[in-house]
């Protein structure tokens, strides 16, 4: 997330709306509905293959950009 106080309107709207829509290996938020447990999965969106999962804390320790 860009810094809301310093970033330009254009940068912010890009953050709000735009996303990397191409196939690739991406970080995604997933929720186990039955338990309400959120975790981050590294998934190949071309082949629908989950390569790794991380607890949410890992996100705060910093995963690459597109974990949104």
């Amino acid at each position: 997330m860009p810094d809301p106080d310093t970033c330009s309107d254009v940068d912010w709207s890009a953050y709000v709306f735009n996303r990397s829509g191409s196939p690739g290996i991406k970080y995604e938020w997933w929720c186990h509905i039955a338990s309400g447990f959120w975790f981050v999965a590294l998934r190949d969106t071309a082949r629908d293959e989950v390569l790794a999962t991380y607890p949410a804390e890992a996100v705060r320790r910093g995963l690459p950009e597109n974990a949104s």
Partner: protein
Amino acid sequence: MMYRADADAQEWIDRAMPLGFTFEGREYRGYAGDTISSALAAAGVPYLARSFKYHRPRSILSFANHDSNNLFQVDGVPNVRGDVTLLREGMRVSALNTFGGLARDKARVLDHFARILPVGFYYKAFHSKRLFPRWERMFRRLTGLGEVSLDAPRQATPKRYGFCDVLVIGGGPSGLSAALAAAASGARVALVDESLRLSGNGAPSSLVRAVQDSAGINLYPATIAAGYYADHWVALAQQSYLTKMRAGAVVFATGVIGQPAVFRNNDLPGVMLASGALRLMARHSVAPGRRVVMLAGNLEAYSASLELHARGVTIAAIVDLRAAPESDAAVTDCAALGIEVLRAHAPYEALSGPDGTVAALTVAPCDSGTQVDASSPRRIDCDAVLMSVGWAAATQLFLQAGGSTRFSEELQQFVPRAAPSGIFVAGRVNGIYNLESRLADGRRAGVQAAAHAGFAVAGSAAAAQGTAAAHGTATAHGSRCPSHRYPIVDHPLAKNFVDFDEDLQVKDLENAAQEGFDSSELLKRYSTVGMGPSQGKHSNMNALRVLARYRGVAVEELGLTTSRPMYHPVPLKLLAGRSFYPERRTPSDAQHAALGALWMPAGNWRRPEYYAVPGESRAQSIDAEVRAVRSSVGLIDVGTLGKIEIYGPQAAELLDRAYAGRYSDLKVGMTRYGLMLDESAVIVDDGVIARLAPELFYFTTTTGGSATVFRELLRLNALWGLDCALVNVTGHRAAFNFAGPLSREILQRLTDIDLRDDAFPYLAVRSGLIAGVVARLLRVGFVGEVGYEIHVAAGSGAEVWQALHTAGASRGLRPFGVEAQRVLRLEKGHFIVGQDTDGLTDPQEANAMWAVAMKKPFFVGQRSLRILQAREPRQKLVGIELAAAAPLPKECHLVIERGVIAGRVTSVAHSRTLNKSIGLAMLSPDLAVVGRDIQIRVEDGSMLAARVAAAPFYDPKNLRQKPRLSA
């Protein structure tokens, strides 16, 4: 003409149990164990169906569940597959898509129009704007197969999840040995086979018995593996239920499908696949004919001839497309029996007799490319022509699983090229035909599959050396080549059919290619080859051969079209299953029912719309409910609201970031409205947030939003890592709103909480006992009267509702429903998220900036809202009034200004309280001025005059919540 042969020890029919049934209105008899088709064939019925396009007479082709010309209407059920459907006593069977019955089908004249109905003819005519509708009506009469009976009942069949280590699909020799090998490794095996009985399909009976006796193998006979889905999930369609099988590994021992020879009139009744004839004979003792011609393209033709000969069928001749057959015992045995073998000969034309079935076959010499010298064809009289010219590998499921294939010129069939992890292939689909090799290949695949599923044992060596076969270096042991490279014979008069579902002849495919549809996908889409009920199981391979020859390329260059589920069509009932619909009920649901509640759905809840009272109309009841709240007291179940608890040192911080308002400064014991935005500043939810303790908040969300809001808050909390936690108690707490001028007085008698204004002011929250039950009370004003939202444990909900209802009964209490609440809140000018706002509404447009604390360092949607604040909003939510006498517009009627859409009515109701009609409208800003006259257009186009008015309409100064007015 087919007939019932003498009894045989192995036959599946029970001659002691005859069954009566009717076909096309006539009575017939078959035996238990017969299928519809075998019984009809045995009864000598010359043909069973009319073809899709030309309405030519057709009968059995493959007898393997892909005979699209063996579909029947049975007891009102359309498209029943007669070749695989067991006969039942009293069945009423009729042919499909005939006009005036099978025999004198009027549409058979279409056969004579064939020349002017070329491939894709319907694209080339009938499209004049004026005439199309009439043509279309004609088409819709002619197309379609069976008829659905509109009064047939819904059938709810069970579905179940299944689990196994190794799933083996196919009960032939390789499948059986794969299953046995996998089980021997300790894997739990499921073995699936289509046919009605597990016969082993040529496997040693000892093997069949071993499989049947193996504890580690669950058998699924008469089961169709309908589709392969991700992660080794396979849909197994049984007679009356669907099993969703999750496997550790899958073995495809799916075998091969007999392919027809293509020659003039190859669709005549009596012309059929040798493999089909053998099935008919072995299982049902139905002979294909008394004097048959066998078309040979492989060794199986000879062994088939021997089998039939042994059951008393005369083999008139074996017509071998090849110059020389294999040197094999079967060949010499045929010679020994004196069966004439015509080598390098091809069928040129089948001739029909008076009953429309085949009466003779003319044959002519041919070269290796099946180019015939038709100068002096020879006529062979016969009553059946059997075709054993080749096979197509049943790779459909393997391809669905992500496998790839290549076309083996050596075998003239597609074989696996590469298999994904956990997928194994065995047997003839691998191009392995010799029995011993099939058994070995099955063992190899079984061991490998078990090992993949975690059951590796000694013998993985065998697995290793076996892998070669799986990847297609297989050869047809003992048979030079099981499939002829071009079993297709041209004829100037055509009617040489490639696709029996769609009535496509060789020239149709060539012409489609000539028009530019010369890739396998385009050819399919234009000519519809392979798109019929059999999904190309006997047409795709020959169609590719025709296309390859036309383009002068190798079949390998063209490739197969994509394979999709279903392998065989599956009834909707099996896929639908019981169909469950989760429904939620509040703890006092029974009380509402007893009070005459009329229900309306709210998400997956059911809520009282209003409470019907005998002698009152809907409107009267709703009015009375409103009046009760305004004049005495009303009681509504608001238990469907989302209810969330959040606690921890940073609970307030989370709310400050997630909601637009500020909660860090909210005093313990007080509540504050909560407005939730998304990151683009659109209003997504609202509710009331109460602070019960410095580190404990309790708050509500909209009924529809509860699940998603809670989930998103969990995500944000995980993302931000604040020191607080959330609990969703939506279903664990009951909640009621007890509101009206008398609410305080009545409630006081039920509770130890001091309800006096100074002790319990507007917007405060208190805890205590109500009717002896621990409760949280929120003093709210949603409906505009003194009111208390009472939250108790779900288990006590019913008794608390009862206590409140009883306490108020003598004072004019009415329970009220959603409709009355809508009117009440509208009088108060409160908007409903999702009704008065839409998917793009921001707080400015909704006049909700009062609920937004822009000064906070951060909240979701703040930055976008700042951007929006810098510009004129597109629309504004305002109150509107209409004269009491005026007819009431409906919600979502448009506001029209100078012929332009200038907004819409989002809420509207007639208010008896105020004696006028009031509403909310989303208007373009220039109109959103109190006092401005506007025009509302209703359905019939007429305009209603209305005026923009200040909201709230009722008690604008909120005096009713002020101490001095309270009772």
